[in-house]
C-alpha cells in the first residue's frame, strides 16, 4: 500500500464527510427557517401538484434561464445535462456493472465534450460580457477552472491515456467498506481525483449550494393560495399572541 493511496483514501473519506454533513446542515437550515410571507413569483401554480410541475421545469429544463438569456441557457443546459450523464456513468466505480450502466457508458463518455464545451461557453461569457465580468469574483472563475480541470483530466483518461479502472473500482469499493486498496500510479488520475475531492470539500461553503437550494426557494416552491389558506410563521404567530389582548378588545369592543 502506497502513501499516495492512503492519502487519497483519507482525503475521500474526509471530503465525503464534509460534503454530507455540510450540505445536510445547510439543507436543515433551509428547511427550518420559515418563509413568513407568501412570495411566489406570479403567475404561480394554485395547487401543490402545479408547484411540483413548476419546480420540475425549473430544475430539468431551466425554464426561467431560458426566458432570460438563450446563450447562458444553452451553455448551462449542456453542462448540467452532460454532467448528469457523466456522473451516472461513474456509478460503475461504486457498484456492479449492469445492462443499464453498460448502455450509458458511451453516452457518458462523449457527454464529457458537451460538458467541457458548456463550461467553456459559460467562462467566455464571464470574461467577455462586461456585465457578467463585473459581477464575477475570483472564486467564480476558479470554480469554472476546477470543473474544466476535472472534465479535461477525465477525458484524458478516457480518450488518451487510459488508466487501470479495475484498480480504481477496487479502491473506491474498498473505501465504502472501510478497507484500503491501492490506486493505480497514474498522475492524471491523481489530478482528476484531487480536483474532485476539492470540489466535494468546497460544495457546502460555495455557490454550489444552488443545487439543493433551488428546491427551497419560496418564489418557486410556494402555492399561490394566500386568500384561501392562512399562511403564518411561528415567529409571526408569537407576535400575535403578545398582542392578543388588544385584538380581542377590538373584536368585542
Amino acid at each position, binding site marked *: 500500500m502506497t502513501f499516495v493511496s492512503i492519502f487519497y483514501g483519507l482525503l475521500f473519506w474526509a471530503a465525503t464527510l464534509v460534503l454530507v454533513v455540510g450540505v445536510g446542515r445547510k439543507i436543515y437550515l433551509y428547511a427550518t427557517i420559515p418563509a413568513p410571507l*407568501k412570495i411566489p413569483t406570479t403567475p404561480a401554480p394554485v395547487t401543490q401538484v*402545479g408547484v411540483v410541475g413548476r419546480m420540475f421545469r425549473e430544475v430539468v429544463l*431551466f425554464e426561467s434561464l431560458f426566458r432570460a438569456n438563450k446563450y*447562458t441557457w444553452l451553455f448551462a443546459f449542456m453542462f448540467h445535462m452532460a454532467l448528469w450523464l457523466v456522473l451516472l456513468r461513474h456509478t460503475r466505480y461504486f457498484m456492479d456493472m449492469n445492462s443499464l450502466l453498460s448502455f450509458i457508458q458511451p453516452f457518458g463518455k462523449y457527454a464529457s465534450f458537451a460538458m467541457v464545451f458548456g463550461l467553456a461557453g459559460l467562462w467566455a461569457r464571464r470574461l467577455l460580457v462586461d456585465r*457578467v465580468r463585473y459581477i464575477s469574483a475570483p472564486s467564480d472563475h*476558479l470554480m469554472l477552472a476546477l470543473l474544466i480541470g476535472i472534465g479535461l483530466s477525465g477525458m484524458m483518461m478516457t480518450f488518451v491515456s487510459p488508466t487501470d479502472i479495475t484498480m480504481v473500482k477496487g479502491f473506491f469499493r474498498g473505501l465504502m467498506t472501510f478497507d484500503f486498496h491501492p490506486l493505480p500510479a497514474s498522475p492524471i488520475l491523481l489530478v482528476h481525483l484531487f480536483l474532485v475531492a476539492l470540489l466535494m470539500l468546497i460544495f457546502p461553503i460555495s455557490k454550489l449550494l*444552488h443545487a439543493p437550494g433551488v428546491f*427551497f426557494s419560496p418564489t418557486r416552491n410556494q402555492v399561490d393560495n394566500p386568500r384561501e*389558506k392562512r399562511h403564518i410563521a411561528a415567529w409571526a404567530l408569537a407576535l400575535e399572541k403578545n398582542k392578543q389582548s388588544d385584538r380581542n378588545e377590538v373584536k368585542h369592543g
Partner: protein
Amino acid sequence: MADYEVPKLNGEGYIQIPKIKPGAMAGKGPFIAKPDFQKALNFPADFQADGAGKFELVPDWKDRALNKLDDLRHRYRSLQLYLDICVKCGACTDKCHYYVGTHDPKNMPVARQDLLRKVYRRYFTFAGKHFPKLVGAVDLTEEVVDDWYNYYHQCSQCRRCSVYCPYGIDTAEVSMAAREILDHIGRGSKYNNEIISKVFKVGNNLGLPQPALADTLEGLEEDVEADTGIKVRFPLDEEGAEVLLVTPSADFFAEPHVDGLMGYAKVFHEAGISWTLSSYASEGANFGMFIGSYENMRRIALRIREAAIKLKVKRIVFGECGHAWRVAYSFLNTLAGPFDFLDPKYPVPQHILEVTWGLIQNGKLVIDKTQNDDKVLTFHDSCNVARGSRMGDKPGGQFEYPRNVIKAVCNHFVDMPADTIHDATYCCGGGGGLLTDDLMELRIKGAQPRMEALKYVTEQQGVTHMAAICAICKSQFTKVIPYYGFKMDQIVSVHQLVSKALVLQRPVSVQARPDDDDEDDENDDA
C-alpha cells in the same frame, strides 16, 4: 420642468442593453428620516445630526447592523437562501429598468444583492471569514453603509429579476432586508417613514384627517351629480355597509386617480352594493412592505381588520393600487387574518376589478363603449400586481381582468410589445418607496423601458392613452412622461374608463340619506 438628463428613445419598442458605466448613480440617496419618525416606527432613534446637518449613525452601528442581518436571515428563508445560492450567471443583469436607464452596474440585480452578500460572506461564512478576497467578501464600513443606502433606494422591489433568475432569487427580498437593517442604524428614508408615521397618526399616507376626507368625498358626490344628475354616494364610516373599500389615499384627490374612485363609486351604485370607506383605514398602500418591516406592515394591516370589524362589513374590496394589492392579496390574511367574521362567499380581500368584471359578465352594468371612442388604449401591468398577486381563480388572472374590463368599456385596445407586459412588465420607475422628488433623476431614467414600449405603440398603432391600476404608476407617469414628450393626461385609471362608459340606470342610491329622498321615489328596487 426641472432639468434632467433624459434617456433618448429609439422608437423600436425594445431596449438596447447598455454598457456598464460604474459610478453613474453614485450619490447620497434619498433624504434621511429624522429620529422622530424612526421612533414612531419603533426603530432606534439614538442618533442626531452633526454640525454640518448630516445624520450620524447610531452608536455601535456596526454590531447592530450585523445583529440585525443575523436576526433577519434566521427569520426569512428567502434572505438566507438568496444570499447563499446565487451563482453569478448574469441572467438578471439586463433585466432591471434602473440598470437599463442609468447604466450603473450596481443597479444590476445581482450586483445590488452583492452589496449585502459580500458583508454576509465576510462575517457569516467560512469562505468569507478566511478567504475574503477570493470570494469578494468585504468588511462592513461606513462607505458600505452609504452604498447600501444609495443603491437599496434605487430598487423598486418590482421583482422582474426574480422572473428570470433560475433559482427565483428576488432582489426585493434582499433590498427589503437591507432597508430593515438601515432602519436599525439611523438610515431610514424620510419619504417612507414619514408616510408610515402619518398612517399611524391619521390613518392614511397623506395625513388627510376625517373631516377633510368627509369634505372631499362630499365634493365628489356633488361633481358626479352635476355630471350625471344622479346622487352617487361616497360613504365614509357608514356602519353596516356590505363592503369596506380600502383604496390608496391618492384616489381622494390626485389625477387621474380620483377619476378611478368615481368609477368604483358608480359601479357600487349601479350594482346596488352598499359600501363605505373608513377614515381609520383610509389607506390601501402599505409602505411597511417597502421598508421590509413585518412589524410595521402588520400594524398598518391590522387597521383594516379593525375598521372591518367596527363597521360590521361583510366584504373587503381594494381599489386600484399595485403594492396595496400585493400586500392585500398575498399578505393580508397572514398579517391580519383570519377573516372568519366576513361573508365566506367572497374571497378576502377582493380587487375592485374582480367586482367590476364579475358584474360586467353577469350583465349587471349597462355600458356605452362609444364614450371612450376618442381614445386608443394600452395597459401598463403594474409590477406588484403582475408578479406578486392574482385576480380571479386562475394563474394570470391579474393580466386578464384589467384587459377584459378595458375591452368591455372601450372599443380600441392594443397591447405593448410582449417582453414589456404581463409578468415581463417593467416597473413605472417610481415603485417600492421611491416616489419622492429627491429621487427625480432616478425616476425619469427608470421609466425608460416603459417609455420605449409606449412610444412604439403610439407611433405604430396610434395609442393615445395608457391605463394603469396603481396609484404609484399613475403618479409617477403623470410626472415623468412629459420628459419623454408625452402629455400628463395620457395616463388614465382603468375605472376612469369604466366611469366614462357606465350608463347609470339606478336613480337613487341604495345608501341614499333620508334628506336625499326629496327627489322621489318608491321604485328603488334595493
